[in-house]
């Protein structure tokens, strides 16, 4: 199927700013879904609120534009009811890890089969550039005019610690790695987390003097490196890209099916 068969073309052009990395994530998702050969009727995409969440409007799946931070909780209800459906849950960084932090760690812990995509632009873009839990110490934001003193989360570490069975990181710059990682995440039977570092030149970039959209893309290239690379050993400040965790654990819906069998036997 052609890539454009997966999108709702009538809603283009999209609302994202010039230079925003989120469109690249959309492209990556479409390519991953196409590579796996999933049927559109078998995919439910659930998002929260924010720039990232608007992605669902452009995708021709069953789409649920939910509440800020709660996308995973909605997705759990859908998945448990219809385990055969594929659940894709794109979220923003504030969405997934600030207001939705509790739902995030508990979804990781349950190992329910769905793919959480954290579109990390290190800022609240929709509301105009406030600091997020991923902005980091020393950054500037409209609510951190004297610099941010909040330390940031590391999405990979938090997902790993919370028990996600597939954890990966890539960026909007790495357009070949992105669909490959997403494909692997979607194919994984269990809870998958993919952090996609995605530039926001309009707010984060401008406030932090990171230059143009192109400069920010180049920064993604220059500040990241494959997991365990020689460059990382030489420069520990580089951010690693790739698949950090991939392990087999009992999947929640499959386990619940066993509960049903046990309950029916006792009947």
């Amino acid at each position, binding site marked *: 199927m052609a890539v454009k068969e997966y999108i709702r073309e009538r*809603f283009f052009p999209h609302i994202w700013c010039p230079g925003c990395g989120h469109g690249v994530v959309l492209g990556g998702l479409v390519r991953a879904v196409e590579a796996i050969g999933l049927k*559109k*009727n*078998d995919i*439910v995409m*659930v998002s929260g609120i924010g720039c990232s969440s608007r992605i*669902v*409007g452009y995708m*021709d*799946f*069953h*789409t*649920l*534009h*939910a*509440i800020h931070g*709660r996308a995973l*909780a*909605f*997705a*759990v*209800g*859908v*998945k*448990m*009811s*219809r385990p*055969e*459906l594929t659940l894709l849950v794109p979220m923003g960084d504030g969405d997934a890890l600030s207001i939705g932090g*509790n*739902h995030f760690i*508990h979804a990781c812990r349950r190992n329910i089969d769905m793919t959480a995509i954290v579109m990390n632009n290190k800022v609240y873009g929709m509301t105009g550039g406030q600091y997020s839990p991923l902005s980091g110490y020393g950054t500037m934001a409209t609510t951190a005019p004297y610099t941010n003193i909040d330390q940031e989360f590391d999405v990979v570490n938090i997902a790993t610690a919370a028990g996600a069975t597939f954890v990966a990181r890539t960026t909007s710059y790495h357009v070949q790695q992105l669909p490959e990682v997403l494909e692997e995440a979607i194919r994984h039977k269990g809870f998958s987390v993919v952090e996609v570092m995605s530039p926001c030149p309009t707010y984060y970039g401008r406030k932090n003097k990171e230059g143009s959209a192109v400069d920010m893309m180049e920064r993604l290239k220059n500040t990241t490196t494959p997991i365990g690379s020689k460059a990382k050993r030489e420069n520990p400040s580089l951010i690693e890209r790739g698949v950090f965790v991939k392990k087999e654990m009992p999947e929640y819906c499959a386990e*619940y099916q066993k*509960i*049903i069998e*046990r*309950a*029916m036997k*006792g*009947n």
Partner: protein
Amino acid sequence: MGGRVEFVQGNEACVEAALYAGLDFFAGYPITPSTEIAELMSVRLPQRSGKFIQMEDEIASICAIIGASLTGQKAMTATSGPGFSLMQEGLGYAIMAEIPCVIVNVQRGGPSTGLPTKVSQGDVNQARWGVHGDHAIIALTASNHQDVFAVTVDAFNFSETFRTPVILLFDEVIGHMREKLEVPAPGEVALVERLKTSVREGVDYHPYLPREDGRLPMSDFGGVHRYNVTGLFHDMWGFPSEKPEVVHGLLRHLVDKIENHVEDVTRYREYFVEDAETLLVSYGSAARSALHVAVNRRQRGERIGLLELQTLWPFPAALVREKSRHAGYVVVVEMNMGQVLQSVKAAAERPERVFLANRVDGVLIAPADIQNILRLIQGKGV
């Protein structure tokens, strides 16, 4: 009745009714005094291939039932005051996106953590106005287990008919009290199933285009129609819209589909109302004491009656006006600072004749409490 007889708590009666109504999915979080509902669901649902999940909090619980409902399942959660506060955002979403579901609030004393194990009816107005923005809501209550069963089935039926969340406002006494329940035989009580769209695959489907009767035929997530569901104002395809005419049309639809059917969703009981000089208006466990007073005083020849409301929202104003027309006194018996009192005053022809008999200390209002207040109102002293 071809059913079975049980001796159960009110919370159990609610579970029996939900299962009778065809519940498929329950998500919840432990909270007194509603926890028995979750516990029983965890036992009973998987026995019939249903799903139970204990979520990380009440916010997640209501979100999960909305997700489940979108796949065509009958879904429910149960909580009490603090959890009900957390659920308001999800409740508003279900109203806006027109997702059928049932939310049980077994009321305890509030505000805040309040009185976890004690009775109250303090959430009546929260049920009506807890959600931000204009909206309409259906909330039902009951004073005995047979009626708990009946209004719980009604709640599911209304939620499917009007494609809206329905709130069951029970209270701690009803939830934990044990009494007889006759569970009707299957088929004895009519059930409303979800109205499915007849639009075929490949034909443009408008999930948010109401039929002439106001109902929306649904297509399940996972089915042949892909559409968008959002908490934003949306057009008939479910896509966000800020067009004034779309916004106005949707808001009117959300309110009118319920407010234009007040009679259809009004459930009540009446005792000796016909010639009542003094009319008690009550609901939930308080109505048990009110009924005791009415029966007692009737036996002594006093013209006193009881109007027991089971539908609290939309408020049955026309019913209250009609039933109280000839009463000299109207006394609202409730366990809050006068939440239903305000609605009764607004409905009554002579609001200056409407009085409050209440108790707000976590103790069930007793017949003696009502008697004392009646003597005061009637000018007889305590």
